């Protein structure tokens, strides 16, 4: 076993960390206050990332990406996780699912996305279809050789900056012994398509400025050329490409937990009460010890899952464990750090209250903690016939 990074990997980590510290941190307070990223700032960050050769760094060389390994990309994500999501969104990492584009779609979607010319957003969730993806009501029906779509999607991140959307839509129902099961197809939908509308979503307590939107389809007509992958093959496309988003949440959680921990550590050493640094009180010192132990464990779980992907080993359970443990570790670390800060931790003079709020969503999106536990237990029990 070897737990060290190569020189290149160390440099990737230090470059991305410097970038986040110098280009993202200074704008965070403004984004938090105004709840949005000014267009020019987003474009400026994007251009710098393109110049650095880090844009679309999750894509292989054959389509113009740098061809990083899963491990290297996870290191990038971990460092990005330190910064505000509203801003790191412009450190563009288009959805890997675009690799499912056919030759003609590559020119229109994949390649411009990798070059940073067009931004994408992914739409799956509906008010009545969260973890239960097959419960979706948004549907497409055949009409005169086209697809006519009706329904809505919500919680769509990055929609305000997106030029096109990758949307999962029901295209039929199969009767199975377990009851009716919806067939799902993936569509590429351009902003501005008639019958397709993007509206402001809800105000979230987590990740101010990383807004969520609602997509409405009202007799929106799409030709077959907009189908990504096979008709009724939405689940295949999902399973082949969407595993990575859980690893992203794990990596982001680890990065943010480390940033938060540094605040806890320094404050414990500097803040004096009863004549000594509060870290010297066992009650605080032990919390510091527990936090770093859990963060290190979450980090290794995450990197090990990425490493398994690189080795082509089964990694579904390992990714679920990493997502579950890292997001829950982040919750504990941000909560404990806030407790160490006491009342000041709640004030927005420090970013602690923000870390604490932002942490909450990590246990929910890209599969709740409960769904991850379900995946893990099913993976272990199913071979035993349970």
């Amino acid at each position, binding site marked *: 076993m070897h737990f060290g990074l190569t*020189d290149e990997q160390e*440099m990737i980590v230090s*470059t991305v960390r410097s970038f986040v510290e110098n280009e993202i941190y200074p704008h965070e307070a403004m984004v938090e206050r105004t709840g949005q990223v000014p267009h020019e700032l987003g474009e400026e960050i994007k251009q710098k990332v393109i110049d650095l050769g880090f844009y679309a760094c999750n894509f292989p060389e054959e389509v113009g990406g740098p061809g990083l390994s899963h491990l290297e990309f996870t290191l990038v994500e971990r460092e990005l996780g330190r910064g505000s999501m509203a801003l790191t969104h412009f450190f563009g990492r288009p959805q890997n699912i675009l690799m499912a584009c056919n030759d003609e779609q590559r020119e229109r979607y994949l390649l411009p996305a990798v070059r940073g010319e067009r931004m994408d957003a992914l739409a799956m969730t509906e008010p009545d279809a969260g973890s239960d993806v097959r419960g979706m009501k948004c549907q497409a029906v055949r009409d005169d050789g086209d697809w006519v779509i009706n329904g809505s999607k919500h919680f769509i991140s990055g929609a305000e900056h997106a030029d096109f959307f990758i949307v999962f839509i029901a295209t039929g129902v199969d009767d199975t012994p377990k009851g009716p099961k919806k067939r799902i197809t993936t569509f590429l939908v351009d902003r501005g398509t008639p019958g397709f509308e993007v509206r402001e979503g809800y105000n979230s307590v987590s990740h101010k400025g990383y807004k969520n939107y609602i997509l409405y389809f009202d007799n929106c007509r799409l030709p077959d050329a907009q189908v990504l992958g096979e008709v009724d093959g939405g689940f295949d496309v999902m399973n082949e490409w969407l595993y990575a988003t859980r690893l992203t949440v794990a990596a982001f959680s680890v990065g943010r937990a480390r940033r938060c921990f540094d605040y806890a550590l320094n404050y414990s050493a500097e803040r004096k009460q009863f004549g000594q640094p509060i870290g010297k009180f066992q009650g605080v010192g032990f919390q510091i010890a527990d936090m770093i132990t859990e963060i290190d464990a979450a980090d290794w779980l995450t990197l090990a899952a990425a490493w398994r992907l690189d080795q082509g080993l089964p990694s579904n359970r390992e990714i679920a464990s990493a997502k579950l443990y890292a997001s829950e570790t982040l919750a504990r670390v941000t909560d404990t750090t806030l407790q160490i800060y006491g009342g000041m931790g709640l004030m927005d003079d420090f970013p602690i209250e923000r870390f604490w709020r932002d942490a909450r969503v990590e246990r929910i999106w890209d599969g709740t903690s409960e769904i991850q536990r379900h995946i893990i237990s099913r993976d272990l029990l199913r071979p035993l016939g349970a």
Partner: protein
Amino acid sequence: MKVLVPVKRVIDYNVKVRVKADGTGVDLANVKMSMNPFDEIAVEEAIRLKEAGKADEVVAVSIGVKQAQETLRTALAMGADRAILVVAADDVHTDIEPLAVAKILAAVVKEEEPGIVLCGKQAIDNDMNATGQMLSALLGWSQATFASELDIDGDSAKVTREVDGGLQTISVKMPTIVTVDLRLNEPRYASLPNIMKAKRKPLDEKTAADYGVDVTPRLEIVSTTEPEARAAGIKVDSVDDLIAKLKDAGAV
């Protein structure tokens, strides 16, 4: 023209330093080390000279422990073409003194024959501010220190220097030694393609003995102490009060 850029591996500027128990220096075990920030500016300037067509090769050199090759890889990832590591110490706590560094650099210069040596004005670990000047003396080359602007034109260079009370512009004959100051440029991040290329760029490893230089320290560190903690300030009620207090303290 070839540009030689000496880079030093120093404690990272973000690290809160701690004095070693025996007072011989600061604790460097298990702390983050980085390229001296002034040297980073020198590397950046060298790369810009190359991009502007005024230089055709950038060679980075580092003298110290073996781990300094990480620092050289950073220089290569920023855009330097090749690197030379001169191993002159085994222990990370051994600081090679400026005269020894300058002697080794003088030998490297004789081998490499650069048209200019771009150094950081000083290293942030011991703030000696001596290597560039000593190198100039050893080689008999011109020197321009604390550069905030550099313009090479044929066989001379115009250098704006940050001196007490303002800026001074001088012209020096090439080849020359320029030590760079903070405002010369803003160093770039290593780009991903350059990070990937860095490994394939040549990095030669030498030792101080290869250059016949004795690196035995001539200075003895008597003690190292933490700076005194800053005393608490006071609040004053008015400007008059402030002036009176400053007068009392002999500050105005």
